[in-house]
């Protein structure tokens, strides 16, 4: 079969297409975005009529995917790790309803926080929900596990989590495709109460979920994704989870690994396999690209057994992603780092693009806030979060999607004057609308800037669910027309924009200002495409 050069994300997408996928749902979030984008751009997916549109947030995406599973078809939902917090209610309960058509939940974790506000490990969620996990080592396994995951989901009638981290999501390698499976026909669940989680039904379903765990463990033993590899030196046994295997093997590319190894790629981890390596070896080293979940389980609270090395005893740093050299050091292998970075080198943090509309909006806001003093602007998650840094230093919070509006409510309740929120258009429809309803119902004296650049900018310009709807949504929620203002964030309107912001900050109720100008990146892309089209015509 054809060999493709794919990102880990793309391998999952291609694996899903080839496994008879009927629909993909998701909300953009680094490092998961390219899964949806690949399917949207795929001609195969188009010809197979695979549904592939962005959802308003991860919860709506998760629920839509569950609905497709209910109807008997294969669905995939993708999100970054913190997106799973948003989808958590649906995710946890989907374990109890179980699946009908195969359902895969891709959670893309970001250890080292390359593009995130935390490095939470999604494997905890899956364990919490009693949902099995597949954790690929490389791009080929990402492809293969996606295919296997759908089969497992249908066989065991449960959603399956596919857990990846940034390094796999955004690294390219060769992937061999397998034959394309046809999509499922519509097929309702044989028990039409399966998805009705009334207490009486949920109790039965929950017991069934608990009972499935043994079978899931057996599946994890038989799939081949978990493997015990014996070796001669039993002083140390190594347990590697997912990608950590690569960093281990990188250190043994020229000589064989002397220690017994348990390579983990599927959870729940078969206890027998853990017992085997634990009993065979004097001590254990656990390598996990994320939180020390297996290490904690193995160690227990008292650590009365054998010595367990990993993130908890300092053998490996407690935070951040693994690297080949971190693993080398954990094994006492000498490393030879190159020369240090010269002292003249400066950091180059990301910044708002030249010509970015957010920049002009914050320049105006900053000038108005001079009257009141710093520390009064709550913000949110998007490109505009960069306005926390020099030179703008405009905002004072970035916590979770939508928190700007609701934090402003609480701060206003505490007596902070003025309390300002700054949120992007896509973040607003993701999780800001319900907060705005709270504000309107409380008649909170807050001013909300909905920074409308007409796209989901930070992740590369995906369609925003808010597009063309922001004013109507605000009106519908009850923002008074006279306090719903649209401004054009351009240098030439600076003074007018300042005046409008001043007026609304003076108003003692909910006001919304919409600085609206398209993202410079998507605008430039459109211009280039126009030029290309003209070029082709001539």
């Amino acid at each position, binding site marked *: 079969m054809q060999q493709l050069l794919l990102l880990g994300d793309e391998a999952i997408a291609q694996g899903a297409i080839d496994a008879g996928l009927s629909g993909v749902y998701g909300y953009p979030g680094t*490092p998961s975005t390219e899964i949806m984008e690949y399917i949207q751009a795929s001609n195969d997916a188009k010809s197979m009529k695979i549904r592939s549109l962005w959802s308003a947030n991860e919860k709506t995406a998760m629920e839509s995917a569950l609905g497709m599973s209910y109807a008997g078809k294969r669905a995939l939902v993708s999100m970054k790790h913190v997106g799973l917090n948003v989808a958590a209610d649906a995710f946890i309960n989907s374990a109890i309803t179980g699946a009908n058509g195969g359902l895969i939940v891709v959670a893309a974790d970001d250890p080292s926080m390359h593009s995130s506000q935390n490095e939470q490990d999604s494997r905890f969620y899956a364990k919490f929900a009693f949902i099995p996990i597949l954790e690929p080592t490389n791009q080929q396994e990402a492809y293969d596990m996606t295919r296997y995951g759908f089969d497992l989901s249908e066989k065991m009638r449960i959603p399956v989590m596919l857990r990846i981290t940034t*390094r796999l999501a955004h690294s390219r390698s*060769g992937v061999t495709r397998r034959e394309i499976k046809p999509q499922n026909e519509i097929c309702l669940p044989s028990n039409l109460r399966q998805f009705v989680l009334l207490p009486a039904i949920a109790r039965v379903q929950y017991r069934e979920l608990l009972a499935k765990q043994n079978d899931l463990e057996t599946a994890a033993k038989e799939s081949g994704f978990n493997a015990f590899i014996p070796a001669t030196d039993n002083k140390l046994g190594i347990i590697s989870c997912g990608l950590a295997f690569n960093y281990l093997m990188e250190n043994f590319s020229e000589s064989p690994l002397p220690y017994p190894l348990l390579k983990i790629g599927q959870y729940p981890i078969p206890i027998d396999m853990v017992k085997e390596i634990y009993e065979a070896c004097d001590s254990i080293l656990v390598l996990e690209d994320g939180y020390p979940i297996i290490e904690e389980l193995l160690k227990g609270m008292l650590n009365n057994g054998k010595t367990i090395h990993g993130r908890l005893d300092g053998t490996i740093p407690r935070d951040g992603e693994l690297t080949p050299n971190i693993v080398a050091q954990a094994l006492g292998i000498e490393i030879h780092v190159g020369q240090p970075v*010269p002292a003249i080198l400066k950091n*180059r*943090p990301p910044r708002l693009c030249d010509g970015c509309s957010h920049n002009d909006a914050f320049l105006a806001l900053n000038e108005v806030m001079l009257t009141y003093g710093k520390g009064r602007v709550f913000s949110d998650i998007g490109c505009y979060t960069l306005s926390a840094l020099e030179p703008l230093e405009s905002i004072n919070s970035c916590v979770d999607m939508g928190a700007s509006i609701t934090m402003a409510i609480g701060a206003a309740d505490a007596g902070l004057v003025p309390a300002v929120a700054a949120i992007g258009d896509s973040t607003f429809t993701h999780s800001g609308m319900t907060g705005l309803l709270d504000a309107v119902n409380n008649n909170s004296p807050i001013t909300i800037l909905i920074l409308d650049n007409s796209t989901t900018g930070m992740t590369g310009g995906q369609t925003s669910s808010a597009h063309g709807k922001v004013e109507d949504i605000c009106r519908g929620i009850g923002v008074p027309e006279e306090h719903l203002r649209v401004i054009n964030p351009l240098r030439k309107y600076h003074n007018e924009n300042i005046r409008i912001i001043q007026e609304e900050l003076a108003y003692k109720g909910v006001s919304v200002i919409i600085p609206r100008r398209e993202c410079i990146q998507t605008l430039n892309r459109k211009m280039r495409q126009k030029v290309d089209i003209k070029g082709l015509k001539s």
Partner: protein
Amino acid sequence: MKKNIILAGVGGQGILSIAACIGLAAIEEGLFLKQAEVHGMSQRGGAVQSHLRLSSNEIASDLIPEGKVDIIISVEPMESLRYLPMLKPEGMIITSINPFINFHNYPDLEDILHEIWKLPHYFTLDADSMAKDCGSIKAANMVILGAAVPFLGLKPESIENAIRTLFKNKGEEMIELNLKAKNAGLKYVTEHK
């Protein structure tokens, strides 16, 4: 055959096009390849890098271990220095000397170049001028790619084919511009070896 390469630059400077060309060429030659990219927040004018690994044998890690890089290929002079801890003692830097200044207190260019010139192996090219001479400053990344060609362990024809493939949707003119820029970089290093 085994090459560990760091591609360095600033978000938006086109290092992923260089990566794509080398990647396509490596695939054409039947090599194993791993290429870790940076997406997301850092792409907004921040420092970006890509780890590119080519080998005739299977490659384990997507990340190159520190101290194991053979070549740093950089489209920005200061950025080439950021990855020195990754470079082997006998490793090489190939970089543009054209600074991308998007923050205040950018170091003195002379100081940057002096740091690079301390290394045993380097090429410093005025890629912007060379690209301009070829027709467009936008092809500066291809000048840098061209300068790296003799050190990649790949056939020059494979790189040419890769450029043709990568720009095939942009028309013959774009292909020619990028090939010309690549050749300018290649010519420079051949003459200055």
